[in-house]
């Protein structure tokens, strides 16, 4: 099994297209960092407008530090990384069928279930490497470029402040949560890949699902808030932000606190549930699939 997994990972990282995602992420993050380096004061001004007089006197260079830059990047990027994840997961089985290699793989003395486990694990491995790449660039490079200070996270009508020694563990957990969300997307693309003999279909469908669901998630329409949004996995993928929402007593932030930890656990459980359903469908279908490609 380990040997088979090594093969799959070797195949993924031998394809030039694999590196497109890494290049795109690096480009976006560096562009954001450049923009904030040179136009950060205006950005902070906009962010703090309406937050009250007490914040207006704080110099922007204190607010604009590596932790805030990372939060801004994740806020922009974690909706789009799933699209890059779909490039590899959607290609996982359908790409083999398209190349004509699936029939060779399935006629080898490896069970279909074993083959799918190895393929999906390799996709997850790729997703994790991609997430680590994001962490290195968004968090550590931002810390290097902007330094560290307390983190201020703007919310509707409030501003959560965390001391600098109360932030890193939140990012660690946020990245773990993001991993659960990305694995969920990966399993969706993987399931669609099992149904198709051409990788374009699963990739495009996954991207369309993410776009439509994200639009629905972000729509501020009360009717959708209770009828659709709670069931969309994209809604729960935003659960990582919960690690930066803190409890405050009389306007004073409680260090080490999380405002609604059960909600984060619930979102994670829903994402894991979706992943299990997508994978269950993929395994059920692939075990019976006639390989005609």
């Amino acid at each position, binding site marked *: 099994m380990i040997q088979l997994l090594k093969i799959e990972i070797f195949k993924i990282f*031998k*394809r*030039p297209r694999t590196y497109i995602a890494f290049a795109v992420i690096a480009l976006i993050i560096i562009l954001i960092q450049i923009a904030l380096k040179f136009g950060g004061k205006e950005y902070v001004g906009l962010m703090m407008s309406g937050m009250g007089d007490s914040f207006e006197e704080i110099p922007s260079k204190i607010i604009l530090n590596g932790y805030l830059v990372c939060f801004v990047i994740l806020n922009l990027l974690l909706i789009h990384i799933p699209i890059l994840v779909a490039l590899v997961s959607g290609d996982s089985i359908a790409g083999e069928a398209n190349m*004509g*290699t699936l*029939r*060779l793989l399935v006629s080898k003395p490896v069970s279909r279930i074993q083959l799918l486990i190895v393929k999906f694990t390799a996709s997850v491995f790729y997703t994790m490497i991609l997430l680590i790449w994001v962490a290195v660039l968004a968090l550590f490079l931002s810390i290097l470029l902007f330094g560290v200070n307390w983190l201020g996270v703007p919310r509707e009508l409030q501003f959560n402040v965390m001391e600098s020694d109360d932030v890193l563990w939140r990012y660690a957990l946020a990245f773990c949560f993001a991993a659960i969300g990305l694995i969920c997307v990966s399993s969706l693309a993987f399931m669609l890949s099992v149904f198709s003999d051409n990788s374009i279909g699963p990739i495009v469908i996954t991207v369309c699902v993410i776009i439509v669901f994200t639009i629905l998630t972000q729509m501020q329409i009360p009717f959708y808030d209770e009828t659709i949004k709670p069931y969309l996995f994209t809604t729960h993928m935003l659960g990582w932000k919960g690690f930066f929402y803190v409890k405050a007593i009389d306007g004073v932030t409680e260090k080490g606190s999380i405002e609604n930890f059960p909600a984060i656990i619930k979102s994670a459980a829903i994402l894991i549930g979706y992943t299990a359903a997508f994978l269950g469908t993929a395994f059920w279908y692939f075990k019976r699939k006639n390989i*005609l490609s």
Partner: protein
Amino acid sequence: MPSIIDVSGLTKSFNEITAVDNLSFTVKDKGVYGFLGQNGAGKSTTIRMLLTLIRPTNGEIKIFDLDISTHRKEILQRIGAIIEKPDLYKYLTAIENLNLFATMSGLKLKRKQLMDKLEKVGLAERADSKIKTYSQGMKQRLGIAVALVHDPDLIILDEPMNGLDPQGIADIRQLINHLSKDQGKTIFISSHLLSEMEQVADSLLIIHKGKKIAEGNMIELLNPEQSGIEVETRSAKEFELQLKQTDWANKIISINGQKITMQMKREEIPSFVQRMAEMKQDIFSIHKKNSLEDYFLSLTSH
């Protein structure tokens, strides 16, 4: 002689279409077993069922005396196959492809061992070239190296000569003969190149519209003792009238334009030719008609 493949009542339906219909056959140990049929006859579907790529609707497949539905892994460990085109990973080199499939067969080979295997199919010099730079013939040879990498007992080749130039076809023919005669492998091969099959196969299975229409030893099926001959003359009608006045009349099978087809024993042919000369017939050609192609067409053309 023990049987290697034992298929009984094999049926595969895709919705309303029955691709393979109650097919039964046995492949004995060693030798080359040719599998013939027109396009769409059900050859590839049958081969895919043997390799567990397609689930049969009905029937039983036993390979090496083991039921494929319960002993899939043990069986596939002893089979090497090329299914239609040998599609491999174009972005990988030949040695990477070979190593990958060796690992999937449970082997851990060193570079030297992999190079030896590539040497056997004449690709050692291009071992580190990416497959996308290979010609069709080279890909086919690499496909064969992949099929043979784990030294299988049974080799299943589905149209292995497709897309090859004459030299490539000759190389594959030579390799099949070597594997069968020198290494004692059992080879189950499907092809639509009948002249090639005639040269390599010892036994034949012919299917038509999913059903078996002939099976047996090549020599027995083609029956060289009873030759069909096709005579091209100036006027087949006139020739027929002359023949009807002789003992040869009952040997006529059909007439088509200037050609007349007859059936006779092999030793009768010289005296027939002599008789035609006496009749002063203008003979343009005499063609022996018991090739595999003629036999195949006689079975499948109606």
